[in-house]
C-alpha cells in the first residue's frame, strides 16, 4: 500500500512573494478585488489590449512569439523607449523581463470570494537580480487602481 503523504500548494501570489524575495529592491503590492479570478485575469492576461491600460508605460506591447507558456514581446513606453521582453504567461502568472525592466503579475482566487492580485517590477540593476526601488509602490498602487476600475466596469 502506498503512503499518501500530505502535499502543499503554492498559488501564483505566494509564488510572486517568493520570487520577489530574491530580488533586492523589489516590492510586492497586493490588493483583493471583488470580481472572480477569471474576469480579473482576463484583463491582466490581455497583454496587447487591457494590460496596456493598467500599465500605461506598456501600452504598445506586441507579442512576437509564444512557445507553450513562454513568450517574447516588444513594447514601446510612453517615453518612446523600446524594449524586448522575454517571459512566461500562464493562468494567474505573468513574468516579463527586458534588459532594463521587470514586470511581475500574479492573481489567485481569494478564499471567501474575490481575487487577490499582486504586482512587482521596476527598473533592473544591470548584472544583478535587483531593482531600483524608486516610485515602484506608487506606480503599482496606480496600476491596481486602474485594474480595479476596469474590473468593476468603470474603467472606460
Amino acid at each position: 500500500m502506498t503512503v499518501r503523504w500530505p502535499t502543499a500548494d503554492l498559488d501564483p501570489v505566494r509564488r510572486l512573494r517568493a520570487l520577489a524575495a530574491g530580488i533586492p529592491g523589489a516590492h510586492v503590492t497586493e490588493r483583493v478585488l471583488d470580481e472572480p479570478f477569471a474576469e480579473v485575469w482576463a484583463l491582466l492576461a490581455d497583454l496587447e489590449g487591457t494590460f496596456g491600460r493598467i500599465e500605461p508605460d506598456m501600452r504598445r506591447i506586441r507579442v512576437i512569439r509564444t512557445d507553450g507558456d513562454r513568450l517574447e514581446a516588444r513594447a514601446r513606453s510612453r517615453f518612446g523607449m523600446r524594449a524586448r521582453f522575454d517571459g512566461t504567461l500562464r493562468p494567474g502568472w505573468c513574468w516579463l523581463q527586458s534588459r532594463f525592466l521587470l514586470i511581475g503579475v500574479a492573481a489567485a482566487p481569494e478564499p471567501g470570494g474575490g481575487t487577490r492580485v499582486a504586482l512587482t517590477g521596476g527598473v533592473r540593476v544591470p548584472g544583478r537580480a535587483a531593482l531600483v526601488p524608486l516610485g515602484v509602490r506608487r506606480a503599482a498602487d496606480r496600476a491596481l487602481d486602474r485594474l480595479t476600475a476596469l474590473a468593476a466596469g468603470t474603467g472606460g
Partner: protein
Amino acid sequence: MSDDDARLVRAAQSGDTLAMNALLDRLTPYVGRICAPIALSDGDDATQEALIAIFRALRGLREPAALFAWARRIAVHEAIRVARRGSRSDPAELTEVPEPGDPQLAADIRDVLTRLSPEHRAVLTLRDVEGLDEHAAAEVLAIPAGTVKSRLHRARDSFRKAWTS
C-alpha cells in the same frame, strides 16, 4: 541535480530573473513535499516561507550542484519553525517515529503525523520521503545523530499502544 539546474543557478545568481522563475518551477514541488508533512495544515505557508528564505539566500550558494540538498536543509528548518508557530497546544502523543514499512503509516499517515512533534515529523519525512539515514538526517537537522536515533522507533509496541489508545 542536472547540469541544467546548475546552469540556472549560475544565471539566477548573475541577475537573470527568468532563470530564477525556472528554478522556482523546479524547487516548488520538492520544497512542498518536505514542508507539507512537517507543517501539516500550515504546509502552504511553510512552503512559501521556505522558498522566500531560499531565494533570499540564493546568491550565497557557492556550489550550484548542491542546490537541492541546500534547499532541503532550509525547507526542513522553515517547516519546523512555521509548525511550531502555528502549533496547537496539544502535546505530541508519540515520542518515537514508527518503523519504516509499518502498516499504520500507509493506513493513515496524516493521523500518525499529527501525533508527532514537528521535530519528529521532520525525522520521519527525511527518512521516508527523502530516504536519508540517521547520520544524513542529523546533518540536515543540525542535531547529534544520537538525537535522531532516539526520535526513531526502537520500541514498536509503544507506537502500537499509542495508535490503539
